[in-house]
């Protein structure tokens, strides 16, 4: 974890020093006759998910994502768009149900080359999440409700924070491909769909922030390490105009790790929570 934190600090300082102020033009909020779909942007996300067991019932949810966006000058992987730090303390209610509560700090980078506004601004969130899992034949299906309270600001100097709530539901399945169940050394495929709704004073009409449809191929290396990669199509109303939809294709690369920092004697008995 230390390595990650160091990187984040280093990156933040680097980008701040290269700050070029740009001013984002304000668009008129007039609904078009027909829904307009912007050209899809392409993004590459590198996501790490840490799930660090700290006690019998509690874990530390530590996620760091590096999100790159394509621009005209930087095709394909693009340039860094956001660095995303999501942390929470999770509570294991049962093997199949857990809850989390925590905060997010996201560093947003201005990717608009023409912009003279600030290059990087922080974004703050409080989030809580309710996750339910169900076995289904050899597969597992998951329901995730995630609620975020979000404070964002534009890149303009002295721009005000705006507050929004996000309502997210995700349905995901993990289907083992090379085994009869999800165990180490198993390749699995994971289709998922997430609908992100938003609300807030600033949100006028654009309630569907994002609909994400993803297919991921994963490999369980060990009980504590899983690697996955997937392709996500997403679309959603832009905040400026509910009639205009942004689209995107995102390649996502995931590293899931779950160390257990408890002393050996506390690990026993393993995780038999209900026993």
């Amino acid at each position, binding site marked *: 974890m230390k390595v990650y934190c160091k990187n984040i600090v280093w990156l933040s300082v680097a980008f701040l020093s290269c700050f070029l102020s740009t001013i984002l033009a304000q668009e008129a909020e007039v609904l078009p006759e027909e829904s307009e779909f912007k050209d899809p942007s392409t993004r590459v996300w590198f996501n790490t*998910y840490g*799930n660090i*067991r700290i006690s019998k019932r509690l*874990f530390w949810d530590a996620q760091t994502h590096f999100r790159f966006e394509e621009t005209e000058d930087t095709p394909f992987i693009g340039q860094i768009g956001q660095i995303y730090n999501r942390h929470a303390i*999770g509570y*294991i209610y049962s*093997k*199949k149900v*857990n809850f989390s509560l925590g905060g997010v700090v996201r560093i947003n980078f201005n990717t608009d080359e023409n912009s003279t506004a600030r290059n990087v601004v922080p974004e703050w969130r409080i989030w809580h999440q309710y*996750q339910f*899992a169900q*076995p289904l034949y050899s597969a*597992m299906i*998951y329901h995730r409700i995630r609620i975020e309270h979000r404070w964002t600001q534009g890149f303009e100097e002295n721009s005000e924070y705006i507050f929004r709530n996000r309502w997210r539901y995700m349905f995901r399945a*993990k289907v083992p491909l090379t085994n009869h*169940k*999800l*165990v*180490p050394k198993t390749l699995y495929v994971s289709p998922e769909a997430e609908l992100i709704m938003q609300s807030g004073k600033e949100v006028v009409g654009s309630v569907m922030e994002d609909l994400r449809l993803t297919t991921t191929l994963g490999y*369980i290396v*060990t*009980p*504590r390490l*899983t690697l996955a990669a997937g392709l996500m199509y997403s679309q959603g109303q832009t905040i400026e105009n509910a009639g205009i939809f942004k689209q995107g294709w995102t390649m996502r690369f995931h590293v*899931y790790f*779950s160390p*257990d920092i408890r002393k050996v004697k506390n*690990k026993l008995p*393993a*995780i*038999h*929570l209900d026993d």
Partner: protein
Amino acid sequence: MTDNMFKGFSVPIYFTDKRKMSNTLTKNLLVRRIAILVFTSFSMIAHCQVISYMDSLNVGKYKGMADFQYKVVENDTILDGPFQLQRSNLGALLSKSDYSFLFKGVFKENYPNGYWKFQFGEFQSDSITQVLDYQYILNITGTQEEAEGILDNGKPDGIWTITKNRIKDSELDEVLFKSTIDFENGVPQKSFRIENEGTILVGRFLRNGLAHDEWTLYSEDDIDVVERWYFKDGRLEKIELNADGENKEINLYQSRILDGRIITLDDNYLKILSVIQQSVDTFDLSQSPINKSLAANAGYYGKIDGILSELGESAFYPEFKVKVPYHPIDSLESAQMDSVKTLYQKSKLISESLLNDTQLTILKMADEDAHFLHSVVVAISENFVHPLGDVLSYHESNILQYVPINELIEHAWPNGKPSTEFVVIGQKNENKIFKGPQASDFDFTQNNIASIYKMAHYATLSLDSIQQVLNDKLTKDKRQQEFIALEERIIAQVNQLNNDLDSLSDKLPLKYMKSFEKIKSTADQNLTRYSKMEETKAKTKFGRHLVRCFESMDILTKALAQQPDRMQVIKEKYQDAIWNPFMANIMNEEVKKRITSAYQRVLIPHLLDRVETELDCDNVDELVGLLNNTHQRMLEMRDEDTSRLERKLKREQDPLVIIQLFNLESIGKTEK
């Protein structure tokens, strides 16, 4: 015995230190005089002092209450005065039966002197009591022996009677034995009478105790005389007896004895008579009723003589005297008879050991030679050893000089002495001749002690040589049987091993096949080596070694067959169920991977490799031990704190180091 008993009463007398005495001669003489004076006066006092004793006392096997007087003279206990020892136990009588006795008489200067009475009772009781005149009266049933008479300085004098009566309900039921003998100073005189088992023997002695005239035995039921011995001045001329309604006459010393000796009429005399009697097969003198009566009488006298000898000085045994001719034996002959004894003992030992050998009994059925030699041993035993024993018994009893040697030889070999060559019946009923070693050197045709010695010598030599031949045969036969038994075991063990190798290999992964092949080839090689060996002790040893080795190989086979299952067990054992938060399920996580890895990737392959390359009888046990103990250790280490061990195991590839780290070395001590 009496010495020890009264030690407490002895008076110790100390002489003055010798060094001081040697100072001056005059002083020495003075001290000596004083010492003598003191000693004499104490002796005088001791002489005069008669002490009474009233307590329990053991006399031979008799233990009872004693009441007597004695005095101590020069540290010796001298019985003097009335003596009584008795025992009776009412408790024993009432519960089962009682043995009672009473010895009563008088001692004078340690010699029984005067009237003596001996009683021995053996009674049961019906436990019915009566009270009469302030006394409890109890009826008893049993037998009572009683002896009474006068003793003069320990020797019977006057009439002695010994009776044995059967008592029934405290009344005399039957006289079982009664002897009345008149003595004068221990020598039987005049006539005597012995009643025994329904017979009455009467006879008489001369004044010097020599048997004389007719000794006649009547039966109480029969008017006829049963047996009659005719003596003349102690010389037994003939015996007449009526056996099975037939009168027999046995002539003995018919003519006057010129050079005679006087001996006691006892068993030995009868032995002499049995040689002398002309008609050997007519009568066995030991069955003679007169002899039986005399023997019974001697028994009773012996019993009392035993008691009196224990107490003091006595010569109670009645010496019935007879006269026999004397055939002197010179010192050479006597020495020869001593040699005969040694030879006889050796021969007897050999023949008995051979004749009692079950192995030989079996062998002689199969082996013609063994059968022949066995028959020879039987013949030697009958024709040499037994008769020699008979002759020897005369020497042992010291009566050889009272029998003519040619008659003794005739007595011992009634069918004539055997020759050095003799015939035995072979296995197929054919006649076979045996001739012992150095047969030509032996000539025992003459009837003398030298011949007897030669016979004894020849018998021993023959038996010795036979024993050698038979022992070789027996040892060989025994060894062959051992080999057969051993080989049966080896083959059974090899079969078991091969069965296991075949049946267990079916379920095993290929990598174990080489080990199995090695086990099989090692077993085969050892078996081949065994079969090529000569039948020696080394082969037996190696065979026993192989039985153990194959047994161990079989255990190794089974251990190897278990190995895949064992590895699975270990694999499952070294797993922790952990919760995967991303999958929301339980996954098994391998733990202590360095241990399992060392086990799976180094240790087990190493052990298999050792089996494949260097398996032999010498290390099979060690390999079995390592395999089994490794598994055991793996099971144990799962629950132990192994963090240090795991650190040490990092990248360790040396199986020997791993064996050491796993603490298996103590088991695989022979690891080179």
